[in-house]
């Protein structure tokens, strides 16, 4: 479970995140929508412990990020807009290295299996990632989340720039992970994917969470209209 309680972050005089209260339950996909500079990435960074909050607390599966950032990170996986990998290593070597760093050494065959489960075939897994497309990189990221057995997944614009097929494939994997009980927080601009994948959607503007909707609430509504209305309110 991911939990933010009155989570606040300021950069000099500017409030980047203003007393955010947010809970993402196990097995839930929470989409955080908002314009650039709304505080989405700041929220992710606070959950990762890359930023120190000026107020409030972020917790990952009960562990306070501020108190023990390393323990909190051990419980989550992170997939940025572009999964960064070492170009002189193959896909499987990258996965091996990262999963070992995450404290989960796995046999080579297991790693191939995880990559295949994430949609990356063995032939591709053995290639150096310098030639990988963004979609292939995201698959390695998903495989890493699988390899480390993360309880929570943080995603920062994960489908930005993916072609529709890759985006669909990615969301299929997310749903699978959520089905396995992983709490997923996804910062995104992608209204379509948010409506398709998320259990709940939050709209963040100027560091404040101004609205939250459940999937049922927006099922038959135009999310784009709601979003634009909220933005201009």
């Amino acid at each position, binding site marked *: 479970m991911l939990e933010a309680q009155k989570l606040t972050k300021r950069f000099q005089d500017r409030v980047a995140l203003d007393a955010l209260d947010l809970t993402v339950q196990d097995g839930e996909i929470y989409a955080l929508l908002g314009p650039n500079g709304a505080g989405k990435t700041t929220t992710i960074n606070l959950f990762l412990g890359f*930023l120190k909050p000026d107020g409030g607390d972020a917790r990952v599966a009960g562990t306070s990020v501020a108190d023990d950032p390393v323990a909190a*990170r051990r419980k989550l996986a992170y997939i*940025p807009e572009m*999964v*960064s990998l070492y170009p*002189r290593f193959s896909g499987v070597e990258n996965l091996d*290295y990262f999963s070992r*760093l995450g404290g989960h050494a796995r046999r080579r065959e297991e790693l191939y299996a995880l990559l295949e489960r994430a949609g990356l075939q063995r032939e591709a897994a053995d290639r150096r990632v310098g030639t990988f497309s963004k979609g292939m990189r995201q698959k390695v990221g998903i495989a890493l989340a699988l390899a480390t057995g993360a309880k929570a997944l*943080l995603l920062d614009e994960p489908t930005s720039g993916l072609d529709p097929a890759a985006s669909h494939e990615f969301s299929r994997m997310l749903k699978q992970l959520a089905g396995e009980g992983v709490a997923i927080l996804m910062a995104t601009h992608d209204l379509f994917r948010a409506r398709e994948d998320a259990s709940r959607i939050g709209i963040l503007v100027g560091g404040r969470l101004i609205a939250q909707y459940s999937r049922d609430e927006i099922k038959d509504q135009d999310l784009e209209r709601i979003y634009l209305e909220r933005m201009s309110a």
Partner: protein
Amino acid sequence: MILRVARKEFVDAWRDGRFRLGAALVLVLLVVSGLLARQQVERARTERAAATELERKNWLEQGDKNSHSAGHYGLNVFKDTSPLATFDRGIEPFVGTTVFLEAHRQNQSAFLPAQDATSMRRFGELSAAIALQMLVPLLVVLLAFGSLAGERESGTLRQVLSLGVRPRQLVLGKSLGLATTLAALLLPAGCFAAFLLARSSSADASGMWTRAALLAACYAAYLAVFIAGSVGVSASTRNARTALTILLSLWALNCIVAPRLASDVVHGFLPTPKLAEFDFEMQKDVQEGLDGHDARSKRLEEFTRSTLAEHGKSSVDQLPFNFQGLVMLESERMAGEVFDHHFGNLWDRIQAQDSAVAWCGLAAPMLALRAASMAFAGTDFAHHRHFARAAEDHRRDFVRVLNEDLMNNARPGDHSYTAGRTLWEKLPVFQLEPLSPRDAWASARPGVLALAAWLVASLAFLFFSAGRLRVVSA
């Protein structure tokens, strides 16, 4: 965790074609410079052995002559080259290898190897030591500048830290990986150097392996300073370009600017006299005495009076020995005091300069390493001074033997007295007892201490940088 990161860095570096090319170049330079230096050292040793033999032959076969004339005939002694000069030639090319021993004069060493070199060689002689002091640090910079700053830019740093890796583990792992990469590059070269050393004509020289081990430790410490400093800078800078700019600037300051600057500054504060001035002052003191009050002739008059009084005689002709021989012995003794004073001051000053430059190593580690390296290789001024001192002691023995022969065997006023091979053979062959590693340590101490200070400071900087490692600027 640290080992895991180190292993990845090691593999990553060796998969980088640019590194492999750079490593191959450095390796070739090390091997070629080592082979060339070995050839030069072995040639110098062969020439020295041949010259020593010829010199001895000439001395023994000079024929019968007045023993004092033999003192003026003189002889040459040759400096032996340290086997580790193959690695670090130090000041060897710029100081003489031969001292001409003769009566009345303490000559400085002559025949500088650099005089025989082409003008191009004066721009810099590439030795394995120079390659390790200058080129390998450059390789470290090129390997390390992006180790963390580059990962920050590419996003992998974020990825790695998100997995719960502690910054300190990551930074130490990077440093260890870099050190292992360099070790894999340099160890074969080191083994090759050890092989060459073991096969050298003086492989049994006392303490050579101890010196070699101390040299290796100093170079390891120096490269560790560069690794820790470079990774620390990479961890502290926002991007790889800034890290590279800073590290290249520091490299240039350390390897190019500092040696020249330190030398000029130290010579400004601790000047040495010009050769002509030095000779003039010394000859003046030989004539007038060190205090400048008693002329040589006056002191010899006093010596004559006291000798006559001691033997109860009124004329030198009544003495039971050749008084001229005794005067020569006394002259040499008096001149020896002057030589000891002037050469002692000069050598002390040069050693003070060397020590000051080594302490400047607190500002630039290459200066510290260079001083320690030359000392352990046996190619610094302390070792040259040891040779010059031994040559002068040999000269005094040689002149004393000749003058005592004149004093005891030539009749007063008999200028036709001659000595022969029996006397010439009494003079032993010049043998230089090499300085022990303990003596070398005394000379290397300022450099070693400055290097140790750098090692501590660079490791502290590395830990400090790790503590401040950020993926997001707050």
